[in-house]
């Protein structure tokens, strides 16, 4: 290893020299001296004498990415697969319980006199009778309000606010 005197004599010109950087890593006094002249030198010193990893940068990056893929792959297969099957099992069990319950309910309701179909028919008639009064109104600037009517009411009020209408209607 070079001496402190040699380091300080060589430092400003041979800042990337491996021996200079090696001295820097082992001598705090010279490190302080070097940082005063070139703040970035500390980072280069951390990398050692040869900043390029063995096999080149591409090989190094390739190794890192392979490791990342391997780890993420191992994480996604094992535990997730079993969790998925567990979820499917739970969902299927729940569905089976619900459908069995419904089947049981239906078999009980099939006893004559229980009006399952009437409920369905009533629902259909509600949907069918809820057709709007105004099917369409030719204007880009109209607001249509259909005032709700009570059941059995024979009169329906509809209001149209239309900016395209003349003022002297």
């Amino acid at each position: 290893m070079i001496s402190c005197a040699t380091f300080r004599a060589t430092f400003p010109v041979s800042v990337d020299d491996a021996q200079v950087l090696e001295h820097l890593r082992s001598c705090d006094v010279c490190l302080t001296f070097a940082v005063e002249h070139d703040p970035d030198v500390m980072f280069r010193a951390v990398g050692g004498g040869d900043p390029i990893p063995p096999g080149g940068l591409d090989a190094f990056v390739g190794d890192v990415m392979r490791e990342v893929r391997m780890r993420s792959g191992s994480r996604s297969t094992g535990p997730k697969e079993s969790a998925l099957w567990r979820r499917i099992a739970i969902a299927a069990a729940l569905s089976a319980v619900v459908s069995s319950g419904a089947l049981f309910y239906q078999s009980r309701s099939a006893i004559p006199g229980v009006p399952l179909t009437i409920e369905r028919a009533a629902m259909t008639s509600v949907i069918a009778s809820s057709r709007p009064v105004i099917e369409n109104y030719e204007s880009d600037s109209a607001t249509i309000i259909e005032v709700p009517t009570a059941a059995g009411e024979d009169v329906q009020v509809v209001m149209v606010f239309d900016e395209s209408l003349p003022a002297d209607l």
Partner: protein
Amino acid sequence: MTKRAAILLTLSLLLTGAAFAEPLSVVTYQFKHKSAEKAAAMIKSLMSTEGSLSMQAGDSTLVITDRTENVKAISAALAQYDAPAQTIQLSVRLASARNEATARIPDNLRDVAPNLAMVRYNVFENLGSANVSGKEGDSGIVELGPAYRADFRFGEIDPATGSIPLSDFRLSKLDKDQLSQLYKTTMNLKVGRTVIFLATRDPQSQRALVVILTAKR
């Protein structure tokens, strides 16, 4: 183990579902008076999610597949719909509306006075009225007083909703020998129900036009 349990449960669920499903019925309906296409649009609201429709032989036959109870209801509605064109009677009344210190309502609007109370106008003036009758599909024109005219076309009565579409109802005003359209709309009038149609520029307008329509068979 978990996989096996899941597979067994899924299979049992499928079998239970199959047992649960109601059988579907198929009916073919041949139209004599009305169009199958229009009927298809009309009965959609009566069909279940499992039901399906298909048209055959042009526009005269409809094949309906649905639950037995739905098929019965649909067949009844179609039989009612596929009747010769029915006669419709339409009463049209036109009034102007504004606000004054004292409320006033003409005699021919007394029957709807409680309903007119919900709009922000208190003075109503009769501008004209007419009664017209026509068959489904017919066009009609009515003169409403000296200054207004309404023209329209009767649609086909929808047995599912009991309503008559009044297509392209156009209200026009005669101004200096020139007839200008005020508005054009298509309405669904429920048989026997009166519709009060109030039109104005905006909610704060000083004047509005009120058309009162009642359709009967």
